[in-house]
């Protein structure tokens, strides 16, 4: 793969297409209940890197991994696998003309790439800087998202390629406004960005147009999103690992939401997630191995993906495919794809939508959360009914908790909170976010409705 050397040049393979369940009709996942998540580790969060070695994405990755190991109650030498996303950008890239601070590089055991640990993370950098991981025999890159890394790790553990596997996702954020500068500041545009850059720009634009079409089709309005976004922010403030709980613990009111500035109408400021720095890790193990660990195992009942893999260009053996045939995925496209995702998630887990106790589907942007949960038929809803559900008790005390994690909206852009929360809910250690009903089966995944990876979590192996 062309950019493999950019990630340490250590020969770590990229995930292979055969590891993804991206078609319908595959039946129950062959490893249902045989893989479990046990340990969780999070670094602190911050808005941007402060330039110190101790607050690099790499230092925080080490911290998160060590916490996950300790949380699971295993010895570091018992870990035999590491699946990670080597990309750590939130959209901020290290400027070519900016010298790399060698005091930071040399505060660690560096790889051949000086930005390793600062603006990217290779498997070899992690292993060089965690000498206690003496038995890691399986390493793999899964691009873009913790969700991608989790489905790849789950399949690898199920296939017996690793038995006690760390899963890592780090994010760095640098100075400057998000996505300003670079190609966006030029008067010409090359590459794939040209098809949207000439007209639009903000990342939320596509979702905003899908939401606009949704409101027209079903007679809904943007105001109807307020209870959901306000509740997500509330759940975020009850997430001690999250950005807002740590850095800006102010609640959001309905009035705040309704008066927020537009970014791409009908998407406003609070419909967008905030780019932050954070590293997060989970420890997965075979169900057999997980039995004697410190925390209650949370069993994975299914891992699946959209047909068009969102990170397809970086998946070995996969010929990238787009979600639709136009520049923009339309409402009809995302409804068809999330319908299919819902069917895949239920089919692979061998459950019906009634079995789902809570949902942590992705929300970075808030305006597409409804596509995911309608596709799943969560709380018995059909197409066009999610915003009506939002007007009922969707709190963690109610009958149908919606995004109990608070997601990215509640805690910043990591695409990780929904998995942490799903595991913690089922383990009974979600603290102030613990749902009142029994947390037996939960779902999480994303990122986009038209491209993502998904998991079904359960309290029991079968």
């Amino acid at each position, binding site marked *: 793969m062309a950019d493999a050397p950019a990630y340490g040049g250590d020969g770590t393979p990229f995930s292979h297409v055969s590891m993804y369940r991206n078609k319908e009709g595959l039946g129950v996942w062959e490893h249902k209940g045989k893989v479990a998540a046990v340990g969780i580790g999070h670094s602190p969060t911050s808005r941007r890197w402060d330039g110190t070695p101790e607050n690099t994405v790499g230092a925080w990755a080490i911290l998160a991994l060590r916490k996950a190991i300790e949380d699971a109650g295993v010895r570091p030498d018992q870990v035999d696998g590491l699946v990670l996303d080597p990309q750590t950008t939130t959209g901020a890239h290290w400027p070519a003309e900016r010298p790399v601070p060698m005091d930071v590089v040399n505060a660690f055991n560096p790889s051949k790439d000086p930005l390793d640990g600062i603006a990217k993370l290779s498997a070899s950098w992690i292993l060089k800087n965690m000498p206690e991981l003496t038995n890691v025999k399986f390493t793999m890159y899964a691009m873009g998202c913790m969700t991608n890394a989790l489905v790849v790790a789950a399949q690898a553990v199920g296939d017996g390629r690793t038995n006690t596997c760390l899963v890592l996702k780090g994010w760095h954020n640098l100075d400057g406004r998000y996505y300003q500068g670079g190609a966006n500041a030029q008067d010409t545009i090359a590459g794939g960005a040209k098809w949207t850059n000439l007209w639009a720009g903000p990342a939320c634009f596509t979702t905003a147009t899908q939401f*606009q079409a949704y409101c027209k089709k079903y007679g809904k309005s943007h105001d109807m999103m307020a209870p959901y976004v306000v509740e997500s922010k509330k759940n975020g403030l009850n997430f001690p690992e999250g950005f807002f709980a740590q850095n800006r613990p102010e609640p959001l009111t309905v009035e705040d939401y309704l008066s927020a500035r537009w970014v*791409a109408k009908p998407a406003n400021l609070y419909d967008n997630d905030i780019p932050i720095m954070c590293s997060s890790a989970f420890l997965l193990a075979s169900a057999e191995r997980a039995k004697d660990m410190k925390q209650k195992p949370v069993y994975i009942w299914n891992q699946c993906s959209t047909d068009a893999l969102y990170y397809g260009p970086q998946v070995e053996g996969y010929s990238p495919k787009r979600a639709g045939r136009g520049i923009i995925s339309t409402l009809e496209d995302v409804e068809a794809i999330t319908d299919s995702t819902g069917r895949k998630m239920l089919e692979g887990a061998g459950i019906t939508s009634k079995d789902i106790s809570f949902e942590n589907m992705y929300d970075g942007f808030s305006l597409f959360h409804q596509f995911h949960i309608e596709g799943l038929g969560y709380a018995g809803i059909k197409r066009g009914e999610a915003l009506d559900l939002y007007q009922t008790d969707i709190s963690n005390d109610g009958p149908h908790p919606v995004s109990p994690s608070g997601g990215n909206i509640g805690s910043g852009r990591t695409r990780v909170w929904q998995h942490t929360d799903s595991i913690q809910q089922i383990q009974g250690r979600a603290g102030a976010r613990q749902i009142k009903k029994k947390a037996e089966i939960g779902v999480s995944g994303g990122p986009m409705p038209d491209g993502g990876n998904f998991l079904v979590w359960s309290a029991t192996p079968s």
Partner: protein
Amino acid sequence: MPKQSPIPDAMDKPFWDACNEGRLVIQNCKACNLMQHPPQRDCNSCGSGANLEWKQVSGRGKIYTYGVVYDSPVALLQADQPYNVAIIQLAEDHEVNMLSHLPGVPLDEVPVGATVQVIFEPTQATGQKVPEWKVVS
């Protein structure tokens, strides 16, 4: 509205060349009889690049939906904020869509469902023409 000048590459050069000649051409797979845009190396449906061709279309379309951009990261667009961006579905195939600033349409008063006709506007940096759309009904 000023836009960035697109730099054509090997895959999309026929599209941009046609724009400079006032024609709208779309990539089409002869085997599947399906169009796709933006152009890709392979057909999104059959996965083969062997039957891809360029097909001239009428330049008629319909406004599917729209958004109003208040905060674009693209520097050249910022002076005109807020501005409309509509999704145009091609008359020949509604699943193929393109974007438009809909010149002449008042802010946030986009006539969804209206028929539009392509025009070609030069961009400042290179003179490369790019498709835009005018409401005709």
